[in-house]
């Protein structure tokens, strides 16, 4: 089961249609079992039952998730694949000691994949949709997968299957979520 985590400022908000449902739809189309849960309502049982977890993005003006980082402490010791998208990547960076810094970006822009991973593939240039007020610095123990220092686009934990991407794969890069969903657990590392 894939756990799709809603990071919007409240459960069942208008933003859920925009940031959570498109991710759930990609997973659903792939035929995978999934559950959607708001980050303030997660239970230990849901985390235990999940095979992989996606932390979704949220609205540009929303920053509640950053003020409730304590609610994500479960990621710290988790040995399951986690994909943080936009706000989700900021959460991952903050949890692992990176900094969340003002770095607004809106629209389609080129993204340079600089390190090969099973999730994003070989180094090359792709185009991705950005919608964020904050970027991150590279947390200790993470590799820069796309972008450059000062403009981090994607990161991966060096030893664990924990990924973060700042752009929105639900727009024109659905293959990233599909691959996260489909990769065998032993290959996603």
């Amino acid at each position, binding site marked *: 089961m894939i756990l799709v985590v809603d990071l919007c400022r409240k459960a*069942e*908000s*208008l*933003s859920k*249609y*925009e940031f959570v*449902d*498109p991710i759930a*739809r990609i997973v659903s189309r792939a035929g995978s079992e999934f559950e959607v849960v708001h980050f303030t309502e997660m239970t230990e049982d849901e985390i235990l039952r999940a095979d992989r977890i996606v932390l979704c993005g949220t*609205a*540009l*003006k*929303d920053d509640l998730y950053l003020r409730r980082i304590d609610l994500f402490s479960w990621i710290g010791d988790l040995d399951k694949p986690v994909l943080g998208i936009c706000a989700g990547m900021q959460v991952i960076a903050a949890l692992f000691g990176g900094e969340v810094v003002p770095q*607004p970006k*809106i*629209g*389609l822009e080129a993204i340079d994949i600089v390190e090969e991973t099973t999730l994003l593939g070989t180094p090359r240039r792709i185009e991705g*949709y950005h*919608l964020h*007020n904050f970027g991150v610095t590279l947390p200790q123990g993470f590799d820069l997968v796309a972008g450059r220092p000062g403009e981090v686009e994607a990161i991966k934990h060096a030893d664990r299957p924990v990924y973060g991407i700042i752009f929105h794969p*639900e*727009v*024109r890069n659905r293959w990233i979520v599909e691959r996260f969903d489909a990769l065998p657990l032993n290959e996603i590392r």
Partner: protein
Amino acid sequence: MLLGVLFSGGKDSVYACRRAMETDSVACLITMVSANPDSYMFHTPNIAWAGLIAEAVGVPQLNWPTAGEEEAELSDLSDAIAAAVAEYGVEGIVTGAIESVYQAARVQRICRELDLWCYNPLWQIDQLEYLRLLVSEGFEVIITGVFAYPLDESFVGARIDGPRIEKLEDLRDRYAINPSGEGGEIETFVLDGPIFKKRIQILKATKTYDNYRGRMAIEEARLVDK
């Protein structure tokens, strides 16, 4: 949260309005009245009748004129949104964008500049699923414009119902059209729906069609009890 919906009277803005009403409070409908029939940003056919839908739904409408020139119309949109903030106290803007990064990114930037929330509740929705949702929820939507091959004359003025959706699905499979018209293939007008207190009856309209471009111009319409 008090919201303003960018509103053309087409199915996307009407359905976005419905979703906004379910979670928040819609304070006004913002209609950009473009002088340019080929506007990059704003739906134009039958825009003058969007006010009748606003009346049917029972939400105040803010009409804002724009010359409809590329990029300059964004400054007009920004002014319109600022006026909605001043007049109705809106804290966020809702759009009916589905796939258009061009439209969505521009509205996002305006909202950021004005320190407003921005919502796109139809974003990335499956277009056929969405058309079926409109029908199952009781929206009466008619096609008021077609602008692409191979949409023939039968589409102009047609109601979006099960058989029409099947035709659009077939054309999507064969010709890669966007079945809900997100690529500008079709324009629509909504006559009734669950958020309508009264429904719209068209009394007179003129249809034109030539070389896969057709329009149904509403000339007379009124509200009737449901």
